[in-house]
């Protein structure tokens, strides 16, 4: 029990409130910083041992808490590369020297090299699709690389499979064998014709003429030709003959395809082997109708823009409208996000008490989803900070009064000796 | 919930107005013409009927018109035949008086002469440039004038007399001709000139063939007479004999034979002409009957056509009035609808 002790306690209280005011100042200053997490000062008592009836005033110690796990409000923007995490999880970024960090500040823009860089200059890390569909390395940052969006040219994909479904007219007049399209004579006759676009190895479009010809009750011949080889005006004969043909048999009671042959195989000129699935064809008493027709493959094209899906996949969208996944953005999490070590630039690194960093993909486990075109606001509430500030100011004043009272008493004590 | 789009609201109105205006144009035309505006659209395949009716109507009117021509020709023929008959009658009376011994030979002869001239002039009557008695050869005078200079008929007659008797009728020797000789002359020499090849050679240019005309859609009939009719030939023969021989020197007996033969001949001629007259009358009747019939048909066809193409004028007028009213209503409604907008109330 001493006046000095009381004065020290007052000083400790003032220091604590100064800390608190500092956090408030920081919070207000960063109230509009994307991904900023509010700091707060938590106090705990420092107790001096008391002897008998003497009370030794102790002090107050300050612990700084970061409300990292408290999500901010999402603010929608118009840029697809603005990312936010809705739910738990952090983006993995690295500084220019290559050290990985976690962050929720997702205002990414491409830099000169095409890397996605946020406002603090950290580069977004993701797994590349270059070697197939990536898998996350759970306990580390291995395999992650900076996302680079360059004007890469897509390679063409040759057609390998297709399907054609529809109805062939049941009442069609059969064509004699010599005049079947498969024979490729100038006198060829057919029942119905359709055509489809397929892609060769270089991604060039090739038009395939598909002829359906009735050869008898329930039997049809399918013949596929390269339209560019047709005789002008008449069609038949095609130079080089049919690319492929097959004989189909339909059940005359159900109108469904029976028999082993359910498709036609052919090789696209300058392209890959293509198998055309015809298993959904029917032969009913209606006219020739096409219900669906599709052949895979695509033509080469350049990147038009990128888009990012909720699971974090970065797609390149090409001029022809097709898309291709380039990267998959992982999310990282720790057991106790609030214990992460905050560093400049809204980034965090693993702290002693935070638990180990685990890496996974969005929507997996308790990880949240990635929202493209949105940013996470800071979770600071100005009103709260201001009231805190007032409270801190009053506390500080009270502490200073304690000190002053101690000082005054000390004065009285010193004057006793006169 | 059924909702109405603004475009559909105004469009439906516009479409209706367009249709009504198109209908109005048609209705106006129909009410002013009394016929459907577009026959083809109204009748469709039955247009063929309407076309056929109109065509037949035109044809019938055409035939009625041409029947007028035929009637004119026939009545002129009838008049001429009447005149011929009168001439024959007067010849007969002068012959009768001659046979009873009255009157001088010269009077009888001149009567024959004038009959011959009348005959020639009547038979050479023409209507519209067509000789009535020419058969089909209507552009040539059917009868050659016996009294004209160089008449081949007269020459042939005179020659036949000289050939038979060796002298002319004016020769005094003619007084010796007996009645029997005269009779034989008339039968064997004169008759062939009128009923044999002589007629066509010297007298007539007419053909036996007559003009055949269509007097109704399916009725054809000869509509002319020919100078080659027997009655006319007989009259011509009687008149020729009388005019050539009566004032000559031939004997009384021969003259009596001559008169009696001529009298008989004229009598036959009268009945022949009468027959032609009645035939012509029958044709006239047929033509006028046909005309009447066709006029009835024309009426019928006109009614048919009216049935097919006609429009009740009262109905057409009502339709015009109705459509006008509708269009006005529609305009008023459109104007109202344009007013009916929430925009008016949002200020």
């Amino acid at each position, binding site marked *: 029990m001493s006046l000095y002790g009381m004065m020290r306690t007052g000083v400790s209280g003032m220091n604590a409130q100064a800390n608190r005011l500092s956090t408030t100042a920081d919070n207000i200053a960063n109230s509009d910083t994307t991904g900023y997490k509010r700091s707060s000062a938590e106090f705990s008592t420092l107790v001096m041992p008391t002897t008998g009836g003497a009370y030794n005033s102790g002090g107050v110690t300050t612990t700084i808490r970061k409300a990292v796990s408290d999500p901010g409000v999402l*603010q929608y923007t118009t840029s697809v590369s603005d990312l936010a995490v809705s739910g738990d999880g952090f983006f993995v970024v690295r500084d220019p020297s290559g050290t990985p960090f976690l962050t929720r500040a997702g205002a990414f823009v491409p830099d000169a090299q095409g890397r996605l860089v946020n406002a603090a200059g950290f580069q977004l890390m993701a797994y590349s699709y270059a070697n197939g569909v990536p898998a996350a390395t759970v306990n580390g940052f291995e395999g992650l690389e900076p996302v680079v969006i360059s004007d890469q040219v897509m390679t063409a994909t040759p057609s390998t499979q297709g399907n054609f479904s529809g109805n062939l007219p049941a009442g069609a007049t059969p064509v004699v064998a010599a005049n079947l399209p498969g024979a490729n004579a100038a006198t060829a006759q057919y029942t119905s014709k*359709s055509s489809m676009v397929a892609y060769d190895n270089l991604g060039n479009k090739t038009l395939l003429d598909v002829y359906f010809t009735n050869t008898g009750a329930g039997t049809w011949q399918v013949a596929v030709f390269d339209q560019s080889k047709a005789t002008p005006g008449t069609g038949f004969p095609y130079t080089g003959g049919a690319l492929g043909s097959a004989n189909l048999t339909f059940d005359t009671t159900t109108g469904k395809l029976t028999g082993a042959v359910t498709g036609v195989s052919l090789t696209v000129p300058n392209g890959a082997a293509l198998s055309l699935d015809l298993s959904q064809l029917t032969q009913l008493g209606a006219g020739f109708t096409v219900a669906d027709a599709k052949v895979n493959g695509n033509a080469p094209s350049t990147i038009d823009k990128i888009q990012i899906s909720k699971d974090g996949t970065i797609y390149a969208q090409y001029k022809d*409208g097709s898309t291709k996944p380039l990267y998959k953005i992982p999310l990282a999490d720790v057991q106790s996000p609030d214990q992460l070590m905050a560093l400049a630039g809204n980034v965090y690194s693993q702290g002693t008490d935070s638990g180990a960093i685990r890496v996974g993909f969005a929507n997996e486990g308790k990880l949240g989803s990635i929202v493209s075109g949105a940013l996470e606001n800071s979770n600071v509430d100005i009103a709260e900070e201001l009231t805190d500030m007032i409270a801190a100011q009053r506390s500080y004043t009270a502490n200073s009064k304690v000190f002053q009272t101690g000082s005054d008493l000390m004065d009285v004590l010193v004057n006793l000796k006169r | 919930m059924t909702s109405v789009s603004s475009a559909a609201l105004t469009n439906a109105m516009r479409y209706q107005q367009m249709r009504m205006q198109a209908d109005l144009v048609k209705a106006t035309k129909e009410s002013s013409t009394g016929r459907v505006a577009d026959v083809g659209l109204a009748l469709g395949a039955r247009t063929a009927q309407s076309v*056929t009716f109109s065509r037949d109507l035109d044809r019938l009117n055409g035939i009625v018109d041409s029947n007028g021509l035929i009637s004119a020709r026939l009545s002129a023929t009838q008049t001429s035949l009447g005149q011929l008959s009168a001439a024959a009658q007067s010849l007969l009376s002068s012959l009768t008086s001659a046979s009873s011994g009255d009157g001088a030979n010269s009077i009888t002869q001149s009567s024959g002469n004038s009959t011959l001239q009348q005959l020639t002039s009547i038979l050479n009557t023409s209507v519209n440039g067509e000789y009535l008695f020419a058969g089909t050869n*209507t552009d040539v005078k059917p009868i050659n004038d016996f009294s004209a200079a160089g008449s081949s008929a007269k020459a042939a007659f005179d020659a036949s007399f000289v050939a038979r008797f060796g002298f002319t009728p004016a020769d005094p020797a003619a007084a010796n001709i007996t009645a029997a000789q005269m009779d034989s002359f008339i039968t064997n020499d004169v008759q062939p000139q009128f009923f044999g090849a002589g007629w066509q050679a010297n007298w007539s240019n007419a053909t036996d063939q007559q003009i055949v005309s269509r007097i109704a859609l399916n009725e054809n009939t000869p509509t002319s007479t020919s100078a080659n009719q027997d009655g006319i030939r007989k009259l011509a023969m009687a008149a020729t004999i009388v005019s050539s021989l009566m004032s000559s020197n031939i004997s009384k007996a021969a003259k009596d034979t001559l008169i009696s033969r001529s009298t008989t001949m004229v009598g036959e001629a009268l009945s022949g002409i009468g027959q032609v007259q009645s035939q012509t009358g029958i044709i006239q009747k047929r033509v006028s009957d046909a005309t009447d019939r066709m006029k009835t048909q024309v009426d019928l066809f006109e009614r048919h056509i009216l049935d097919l193409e006609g429009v009740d004028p009262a109905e057409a007028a009502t339709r015009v009035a109705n459509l006008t009213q509708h269009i006005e209503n529609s305009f008023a409604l459109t104007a109202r609808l344009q007013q009916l907008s929430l925009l008016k109330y949002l200020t």
Partner: protein
Amino acid sequence: MSLSTALNIAQSALLATSRQTAVVSRNVADADNPNYSRRIAVVTSTAPGARSVDIQRATDDLLFRQNLSALSAYSGQNALYSGMDRLGLSVNGVDNASSPSTAIANLQKALQLYATSPSNQNIGSTVIDAAKQVVRSLNDGSKAIQDFRTQTDGEIGTAVNDLNSLLGQFQDANRAVISGTRSGTDVSDALDQRDALLKKISDYIPVSTFTRGDNDMVVNTADGTTLFETIPRSVTFTPSSGYAAGAAGNAVYIDNVPISAGSGGNTTASGKLAGMLQLRDGVAATMQSQLDETARGLITAFAETAPSMPNATGLFTWPGAPGVPPSGALINGLASTISVNAAMDPSAGGSPTVLRDGGANGAAYVANTSGGASYSTLLVAYGDKLDKPMSFDPAAGISVTSSVSDYAANSIGWFQGVRQQASTAADAKEALAQRTADALSNATGVNVDQEMSLMLDLEHTYQASARMMKTVDDMLAALLSAVG
């Protein structure tokens, strides 16, 4: 929850409201655009305060398909009907005034008059004039038909070019739709454009469509020929520079498959192309055959006959004279080559008396052997022959046995019968097209009043949000003044 959150929510509400307002104003702006589908702004709350606006487009697939098929049907029918209107007018004239039937009736009348007074050569000349009128009617009709066919051929060529260019535009629109759908952007405008193009295409050819992944549309014709799949298929047609009777026109090929022409008055033709093909190769060609048969009938009816001599051409003649065309067999183009026999034509040094007496083909054929000027038997016989049944080629489409004059009248009847059906069907199909368009418009179009009331709602929301911001601002100001 905090004041800042309240401020943020109010802000996002403002953003959402302004996007909704943009949609409303777009709807109002395009209220009169028949190809515009109403947009509906759907607001979804994703997270507290976060609202995203999704733009949906009102569609009714069934009504749209109905509308397309009604449009095609009407367009085909209308092409036929309006074409027949033009054709009928140019061949038969107003109220059939210049039709062969009318000309033959006049000839018959003149013949009747001439038969009544055969010696009158003025009337005889009238007959020849009437005959010339018949010939002119046939020649001109034949020429008009072939001109019409050439013209229609040209129109088909233009239509094919239009169709190709529409398919090209369709490819662009389809590509925009696919790429927009893949990237998740609002493709309403591209869909509107694609639907509008589809309507235009169905004007030319009936279409059936199906949609593959990413809104990629495949367009087939109603009979299954591919019209568009990833890329447009070529529609090809070689126009002919001119037509002769009996000459077949070139077909229109889509993807090398020929389009079939329509048939019947209530035509099976769907789309303008099939309608025009029917006009060119069906209606006009049949009409030509009927004219040809009428011409043949006339030549036959006026043929000169003589015992133990072959029949020879009389008043009407043709390049095959003096022979008469074989009975009951169509000779293509006869109507354009028929002419009046020069031997009877006063203006060509002939005389109508040859008609009256016979003998255009030599003395053996003279019927008026006595040479009478009022010989009428032959003339009356000609008049009878015009009414006498003879056999006609069934290929020309009408009565196989009838008189020439009836045949000519029946030809008009046939034409008007088809035209009447076409007109009735055109009215019905137009009404259907109109009704389906109305129904579609009702389902997908804009009601301005509805949009306006929505606008009022939005205005209120906006005002409320703004008020919210003001209140929060006031509260913060109060706090700040407490600090100060």
